[in-house]
């Protein structure tokens, strides 16, 4: 273990995308981390963490992590009394990263339970441990709908795109009240949409930005297979063909309600900015980890066409005409991207005053074709996550 120069951090959500990246970098910086988490079906928590650290290439850091099986819905986090007290005596700060990221209204109860109701356990622990800092990983989209300029203050939004945003906004307010009452310094970190590492392309999760690309790729592959193995009858029926230069022409009109941006940041920026905030901000605050140079779906579509050797993608801003005839690819694609649609053309602007100060003006990179290519090639290599640990 590194010396007691750095605070001992209790981290939740360490097996998730953001949590695991934070854990890896913090370990490399010499932090001691206590992970509160759950075993999976056939894997202990320690095995899960070990597997992740190996993926980050820092398997030997496992000694620096203490893994505690915790159930956030239980009193004392389901931890045996003696152990709980010992933990209370050593932990200096908490980073609460654990979250249910489902957007599904059908899962409202589960999402609310995980993101709001289950806060009680970790907050009580923070109080009992007399911690100095509580860092909460939230989302930029607690701002809700109908707002154009989103400030780095607590959200008072009444309407949200989905239950996930709603739960995160509720959680922020609850945590804030609790921390105020118990004199715990709170920082709320609000990333926008996070993709993989901008340098290596590596990622552990392939939703959000990846999902439309993956959907389009799947549809492309279905027609490529039809063209090469089945005479392309179905493809021809839908005006799909291979151009002389080998590009697949696959008409895919994507309607987005209005012109807007796609605010995405790479995970390396998320990690570096978060650590700076944790290390620099003794007074706490709210921080937007968003991109001042957001991209657009038009740009992403171009990148996609170039990488996948496809033509025919058209981003159209404005309402979809009634009785519009959609080809099967368009219809399915529409359905695939439905949960993400509000984020694909977004005209909210995010205030970054606190963030700029706390991170020494650290900014996420502009989303270039190179970054896109690196990230997507990695995603395809690991079969969109399916073979990531194979």
């Amino acid at each position, binding site marked *: 273990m590194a010396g007691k120069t750095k605070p001992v951090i209790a981290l939740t959500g360490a097996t998730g995308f953001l949590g695991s990246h934070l854990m890896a970098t913090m370990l490399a910086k010499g932090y001691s981390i206590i992970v509160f988490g759950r075993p999976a079906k056939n894997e202990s928590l320690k095995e899960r963490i070990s597997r992740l650290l190996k993926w980050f290439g820092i398997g030997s850091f496992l000694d620096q992590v203490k893994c505690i099986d915790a159930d956030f819905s239980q009193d004392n986090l389901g931890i045996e009394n003696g152990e709980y007290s010992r933990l209370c005596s050593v932990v200096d700060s908490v980073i609460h990263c654990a979250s249910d990221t489902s957007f599904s209204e059908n899962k409202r109860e589960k999402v609310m339970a995980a993101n709001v109701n289950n806060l009680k356990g970790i907050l009580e622990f923070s109080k009992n441990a007399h911690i100095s800092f509580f860092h909460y990983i939230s989302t930029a989209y607690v701002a809700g709908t109908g707002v154009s300029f989103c400030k780095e203050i607590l959200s008072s939004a009444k309407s949200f795109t989905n239950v996930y945003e709603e739960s995160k906004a509720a959680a922020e307010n609850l945590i804030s009240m609790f921390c105020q009452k118990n004199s715990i310094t709170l920082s709320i970190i609000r990333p926008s949409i996070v993709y993989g590492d901008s340098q290596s392309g590596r990622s552990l999760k392939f939703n959000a930005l990846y999902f439309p690309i993956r959907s389009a790729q799947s549809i492309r592959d*279905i027609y490529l297979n039809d063209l090469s193995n089945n005479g392309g009858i179905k493809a021809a029926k839908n005006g799909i063909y291979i151009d002389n230069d080998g590009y697949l022409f696959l008409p895919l009109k994507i309607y987005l309600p209005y012109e807007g941006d796609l605010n995405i940041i790479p995970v390396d920026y998320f990690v570096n900015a978060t650590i700076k905030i944790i290390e620099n901000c003794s007074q706490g605050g709210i921080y937007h980890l968003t991109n001042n140079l957001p991209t657009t779906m038009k740009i992403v579509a171009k990148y996609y066409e170039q990488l996948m050797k496809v033509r025919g993608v058209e981003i159209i801003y404005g309402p979809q005409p009634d009785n519009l005839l959609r080809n099967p690819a368009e219809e399915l694609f529409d359905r695939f991207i439905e949960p993400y649609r509000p984020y694909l053309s977004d005209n909210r602007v995010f205030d970054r005053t606190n963030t700029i100060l706390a991170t020494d003006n650290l900014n996420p990179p502009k989303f270039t074709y190179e970054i896109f290519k690196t990230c997507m090639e990695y995603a395809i290599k690991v079969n969109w996550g399916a073979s990531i640990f194979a």
Partner: protein
Amino acid sequence: MQDIVNKSDDKKTPYEIARNCRHYAMCKIDFLGSGVCDSGPEKHFVSFYPQGRMILYEALAGNKISVTEKCIEIADSCNLCGKCDYQCYFLNEMRPTKVMEALKNHVQTYIKNGGKIKLSKDDFLLAEIKKIVGENWASNDEAITVTYSHDLSAISDPKVPDYVVMPNTKEEISSLVKLFNKNKITYTIRGNGQNLLGFAINEGAIIDLNRMKTIEFDEKNWLVKVRPGVTAFDLQKQAQKRGYRINASEPAALLCANIMCSGIMSTFSTTYGINADNFINAEFVDHSGSLFDLNEISSPNLYSYKNLEHKDSPGICVSASIRLHPVTDDEKGILVPFETLNNALDFIKDCSIRHIGLALGIVGAEYISTFLSPTKKMASEIKNIFVDKLNIPWLVVVIGDKYAIRSISEMGFPFFDQNLFKSLYLGLPSLKTAQWLDLVKELSDDEPYSYLKVKSFAELFETALSPSPRLYSQEVDKELSPFFEKLFSHQEMTDLVWLNMYRIMSTRLGRKKPFLPALIYLPIDKDLINDFTDKFRLIAEKHGIDNDFGFITPIDNGKRCIFEYDFFYDYNDPDEIQRIRQVAMESNMLIDDYSVKTGTVKGHPYVLYQGFCRKENLLYS
């Protein structure tokens, strides 16, 4: 032992194949349209069908019997046409012709080596029997009798009868009963031996009813009179030709046997009913050899029900007038997927109460993947895809007219319609490698199976799977694939209505291992059904027996349902047979317990030989 079950047929010896014959009698019906073994319909004894030859070869190769006159006739009457390979491979992935060749070789070598042919002599009783049924229709030749030593069940020990008799009229049956009574000979009736409990084997005489195959339609009275040798498959075919349907259970089961044994039930029982709902009248020869007609006032009251385990048989059913049901030309089949058994139960109950759908049944992923897959290997791969990728652990099969299907659509349930089902079925091999399935799963996060509501999903699904008889047939043995390709080009092979009304797939359930079902009649009560499921599983696990949920079909407007839970065992493994017997006993005790506790649960053993009873007496008394 396990190895033999899993070995593919090209690696198995003929003896091993023969020992694995499932005795389902499916080779006695032409369910693939490929024709049946030529000698069978001519000679009628099971011995002249592939199933009989399998048992005969097993007995010869195992030195249980020696070569007899009939043995030579049975071996010679096989012309190695290979039809039984198609049939048996389709159901069990077995290739019996290898056994047929071995049987012929065995007999020829025996004769060539100067082996003595055992001649059977008519004793007094056989001579008397022959006076009744004719020279050709009774035998005590070991090659014949040994083929009646098994029925489908392997939990009862095989028994070789002394005589096998094949009467052709009810008068002959009456005379036989009198003769057997007079000579104190035990006699046992045999249909096609498909009952799952070993009731069609015994010592003494076996009366095989398979010559009595007359079918007489009385359309103005919506009935068809069958004699006791008519199979469900053959009658359904005749009924369909005339625009009707009957409620049929297993295709090779004889209708009279089925009613007699425990009553006909199928997914169509949701509307067509069970037990007495299925027939209008029946004729019997009683234990003294006298004839009676169920409609006569003086006849025994077979409509009543007594809660007795293994009640005595009321006699021999020599004809039954089966109800005919009308058919509309807009009937279709659909598959409605569910994430939980409870949701599927709510659905079938609701449909049943509202009279939506003609046939309804919940099946699990094991059932559906077994039915759809041409091989065992593929079935297990497909099962995983259904559960893990498509998130479909449960499916409800619905057969209904256009109004029923429309109602289900209006109720908001996404489903696989007939076209999607066909793509799924004939595209199964592509499903194994379809990467886009991961997306489909994520797509379902918001609303389960909502992709099925995407209008052109069917077209994309078809494009993605490239379903075709050729693709599907690539999965089977190379030599058989041209036959399978042709077979699967027939529209009915992928038609959910046809598949359900003929039920030719259900014997595939025993493909991996033979099975023993626990069958219960009970209310559609989620707690009760989940309790049974858990407890059956625990019993099976305790004894190391493979097990799975079978099916649930609602009956009587959703007031009750039929629930089958299946246990699988290797019937060449004496230790597993001991264990499955234990499982059967404990499962029956469990059903008995609930029966007493709830007053609403009835177990299958209590229905045996009461198949003629009114369902109301069975379900609510």
